[in-house]
């Protein structure tokens, strides 16, 4: 945990001083385990006090969790929801990439779309979920439409910011050397914008599974949202929690197992390390200063524009 590795606040200096000994190294772990134990004990006591039919005890939820995981339907619903999340995210990413790059590169496009993007950003996911269900009806399209509408503005904002930070000098230089437009796009624009696309995907994933669940709650008969709604109507709190937490866990797995490593790989070259293979071939290197960058590129090219290409 990053917080524990930071220097201790002055008030806690004595505690940090003691952490030299090996026993004290266990201290953070002990505190966390202790806090969790207190939490579950308090929950248990509260559940017994208000009645387990209102607030189930922790073990009941754990039991239900295992039950839900082991059932065949679990995979069916989970895959249904995941498919919708991925489809909607793919649509949003495509729209946002084109829109965001256009807005970052062209002032006119920026002025034309900024109001629409910011307006779309303030509409809550709930509104999109309800509207999509009412327009499309009870079908797979409703969650996908809802998520696309809710997530696209957010991603566009991200990619727009990334495209605005694009190195203009590099862009101009590639124009001077008559690099073709397609190549310019592939080798100057895309590598610079890629980190914000992946960063946007991370943000988008966090929002999109929540909107998917909402849309499924109101208008689909499969998926995790549908199961949550069914359990809610049966007044089964453990069911609601089991389904919601399992979906949250799968999403966390995708984020930390898949998207974050990709993001780190893509942004590593910015920290001073060698650029990833994708970027190494391109014009995009990381020299100390802007003027030097142009000079270096010219030197490397041997003074001719052929070699730069």
């Amino acid at each position: 945990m990053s917080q524990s590795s930071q220097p201790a606040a002055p008030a806690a200096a004595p505690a940090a001083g003691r952490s030299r000994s090996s026993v004290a190294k266990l201290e953070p772990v002990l505190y966390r385990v202790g806090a969790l134990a207190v939490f579950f004990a308090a929950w248990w006591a509260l559940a017994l006090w208000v009645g387990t039919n209102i607030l189930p005890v922790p073990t009941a939820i754990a039991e239900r969790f295992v039950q839900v995981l082991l059932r065949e339907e679990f995979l069916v619903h989970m895959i249904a929801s995941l498919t919708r999340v991925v489809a909607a995210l793919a649509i949003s990413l495509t729209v946002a990439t084109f829109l965001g790059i256009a807005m970052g590169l062209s002032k006119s496009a920026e002025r034309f779309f900024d109001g629409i993007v910011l307006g779309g950003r303030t509409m809550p996911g709930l509104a999109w979920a309800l509207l999509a269900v009412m327009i499309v009806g009870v079908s797979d399209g409703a969650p996908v439409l809802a998520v696309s509408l809710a997530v696209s503005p957010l991603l566009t904002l991200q990619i727009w910011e990334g495209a605005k930070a694009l190195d203009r000098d590099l862009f101009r230089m590639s124009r001077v050397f008559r690099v073709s437009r397609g190549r310019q796009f592939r080798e100057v624009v895309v590598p610079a914008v890629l980190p914000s696309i992946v960063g946007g995907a991370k943000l988008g994933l966090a929002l999109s599974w929540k909107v998917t669940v909402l849309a499924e709650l109101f208008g689909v008969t499969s998926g995790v949202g549908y199961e949550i709604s069914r359990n809610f109507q049966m007044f089964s709190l453990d069911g609601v929690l089991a389904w919601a937490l399992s979906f949250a866990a799968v999403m966390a797995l995708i984020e930390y197992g898949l998207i974050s490593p990709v993001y780190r790989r893509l942004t590593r070259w910015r920290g001073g390390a060698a650029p990833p293979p994708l970027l190494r071939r391109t014009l995009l290197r990381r020299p100390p200063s802007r003027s030097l960058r142009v000079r270096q590129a010219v030197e490397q090219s041997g003074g001719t524009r052929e070699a730069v290409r």
Partner: protein
Amino acid sequence: MSSVRVQRPTSQRAAVPGSAPRTKHLSGAVWLRLAAALTVLVAWWLISETVAEGVFPSPMATADRFAAIATSETFFAQVGITLWRVVAAMTVTVVAATIIGVAMGRIRRLEMSLDVFILVGRSIPGLVWALVAVMVVGLSDWAPVLAVFLTATPLVVVQIWEASKALDGDLFRMAQVFGVGRLGRIRHVLLPALVPSIVAGTKLGLALGWQVVVLSEMFGQSSGVGYQIHENFGNFDIAGVLVWTIVFSAIMAFIEYVVIDGVHRRLVRWRPVGR
């Protein structure tokens, strides 16, 4: 005061990207934005007339519906009820989060005990808490408050916790040396330094919190904006859903960018310019 390390006022974050002063091309910018608004309206109208005829209301029909809802007698009562729930819930959340955040920032043992809860709690969606609150508390006014508290507290705590960890200990020690009591230190040293992060946390929490209030009204209340949205949804009245969500989103945006930012500017007025 130069040793008080605090974040810059977050009100700058509210600035629209790309809205830097561009007086030279102002007319062109205005023209393009007008064209964009017009395009949206025309596209909306075309969709309502062709693809989704009879399903999706035209802009004119939505405007009519807006007029009808805004002039109905229950409009202000419904908005007022939801606003009251949002305010009550956010007050509870921000006060609790300030206490927890400061305690976590100052007391290392507490930080070690609670950080897991905060980090896990942040990833649980508001929808889950809205459902859980309705199931546990029932149909009372406390359900939205509990739901918002559970959803937004972790977010707000993170802001205040990090800011209070970055606080400068020198000012504290100086206040102590000069015999300022514990309460005085909290009032005159701690709280002023934390204002920016409390404001940032409140805005973050509010953006999520009002949606959670609306959600829990949909599932477990018989009044408020969320109930109205749910009723219109049940009646398949798209214009009604649109009007209620847009109106309440606009009210919340007004509170976030005008009311809270205004209060923030007043609260940080003492600070030297440029900090």
